[in-house]
């Protein structure tokens, strides 16, 4: 059976490089890849466990305020945490909810694209744009691999 892939970008495009996740998803939507669903929102939230449970593989795409350039790509496992506000949940928490509520184990990755500016600007910084290009090329090939072998 074909590997169902969800690419989920999150962040606020009105806050400069915080919009890297949705920007990548928007670019990916233009590719119309069979078997690949996309979604984006300001933050990850508990209800995203529903969409994740309907996939075999999910790739969370987020902006990173620090860390390696131009991006990092790593597997993420279910986890639980205590948060101070209702404002967001982590990819690990979404996966844990998916496991606990829907008994669905999903292979998941986080693509963290390095950003630099976080002002009230609806445009990526040039460096973040460059990182986005590289992340997109990487993800495009990675998706092909995932579709073929599901690994």
């Amino acid at each position, binding site marked *: 059976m074909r590997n169902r892939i969800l690419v989920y970008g999150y*962040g*606020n*495009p*009105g*806050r400069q490089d*915080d919009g890297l996740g*949705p920007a990548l998803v928007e670019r990916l939507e233009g590719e119309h890849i069979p078997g690949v669903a996309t979604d*984006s*929102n*300001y*933050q990850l*939230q*508990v*209800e995203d*466990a*529903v969409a994740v449970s309907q996939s075999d593989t999910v790739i969370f795409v987020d902006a990173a*305020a620090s860390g390696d350039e131009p991006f990092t790509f790593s597997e993420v496992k279910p*986890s*639980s*945490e*205590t*948060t*101070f*506000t*209702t*404002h*967001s*949940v982590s990819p690990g*928490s979404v996966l*844990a*909810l998916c496991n*606990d*509520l829907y008994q669905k184990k999903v292979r998941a990755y986080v693509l963290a694209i390095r950003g630099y500016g*976080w*002002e*009230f600007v*609806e445009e990526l910084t040039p460096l973040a744009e460059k990182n986005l290009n590289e992340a997109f090329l990487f993800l495009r090939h990675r998706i092909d691999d995932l579709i073929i072998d599901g690994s």
Partner: protein
Amino acid sequence: MARKITIEPVTRVEGHGKVTIHLDDNNNVSQSRLHIVEFRGFERFVQGRPYWEAPVLVQRLCGICPVSHHLAAAKATDVIVGAGTGEGLTPTAEKMRRLMHYGQIFQSHTLHFFHLVSPDLLFGVDADPAIRNVIGVAMKHKDLAVQGVMMRKFGQEIIRATAGKKIHGTGAIPGGINKNLSLKERDEFLKGADPLNIDKMISWAQAAVDFFKDYHSKHKDMIDRFSVFPSNHLSLVRKDGALDLYHGVLRAVDPNGTKILNDVEYQEYYKYIGEEVRSWSYMKFPYLKSLGKKDGWYTVGPLARLNTCDFIPTPLAQKEFERYKAYTKGKPNNMSLHMHWARLIENLHAAEMIKKLLLDRDLQGTKLLTRGKKVHEGVGLLEAPRGTLFHHYKINDQDQIIMANLIVSTTNNNEPMNQAVSYVARSVFSGKAEITEGMMNSVEVAIRAYDPCLSCATHALGKMPLEISLHDAHGDIIDVRQK
């Protein structure tokens, strides 16, 4: 040795809050403060932009309650384009906006209860943080967690159908709305496959109220005594005194229920409300001018709204409102954790309102816009999930915004949150030489009742842990706890 305890909660690209608790030489709390690091960059940013962009621009403030900002800005620009203040819109426009707003209230209140409150109630404030979270709820109370997830999803779908999309929705525009609700969309909400239909949502919202009441009956001491202090309360109410979260007149009551702001039109809110700056916080402290800076502070949000309104105009929520009011013999409720009870009653009301609106054929109307004589100033108010939200704009002859003033719910609740922290600090920190997880969480529980939205009240970067540090009289750190 005098000590200072510092708590620093921060999330993603959001604001930065810090609690400091000063202990005297006998380890009694001498002073406590909630500091908010605020950067009002947005109000400067919006200057020079065309006014009609405001309803979309303001969603950049944050991703927490973009719908509330979207609608408050739209209401302000309604005034500018001469469409009036609330009643001037076409029935289709006004009801579509209300549907969007009640969808936002529903998903936000649901999230607050299931994500933040239920773990504390189900596992206790002192429970291991490893289980005292929404994942813990999912593992031990699966049905409750599924309800929370699906209610959130339903509310988000309402927003998507009315605002057009999840990020930077464009549904509300100056003078109206840019789409109606199709019959197909309507029927998906009315008759959707179980559980995603409005009747199920109403029954689950009722169950959540019942859950809280049951818990309250077994834990009255904790719920009734945790952070109780007299406060004024402010909100919009409908002109007949009904709870109305989208539009109305401004009303405030004092701790005894006496009206101290008597149903005034909000276009001239600045005649009644001032904003004080204090040296130790970047976030302003709003107050009622008639009472002055010292005594004029007030609470906004669910607790305040049920203290100011006379009734709730939907049957199930009204029934719960009557029980809720009877508990305090009709007097204003000043118990911080009753905020959760009030929030769940509002959530039930929101679900009932969504059904009422879905059954209204005006939502399929085609008259979407109203225009009148343009003016150079407009104020938009609504009751956001966390409380009263003010948007005020002035424009020049070139239609550019030359002044913007936003008072967000969290800013309105600045002093009450400080009061709540002080109350809890005195209760749990006095006489203690060490900070425990339970003590830390008690302070958090007090603040969490207000669910402060730091990202629109503030702007700071980075991700930092929650931290408590102890300082001696000289400011040196003698103990630090993080999580």
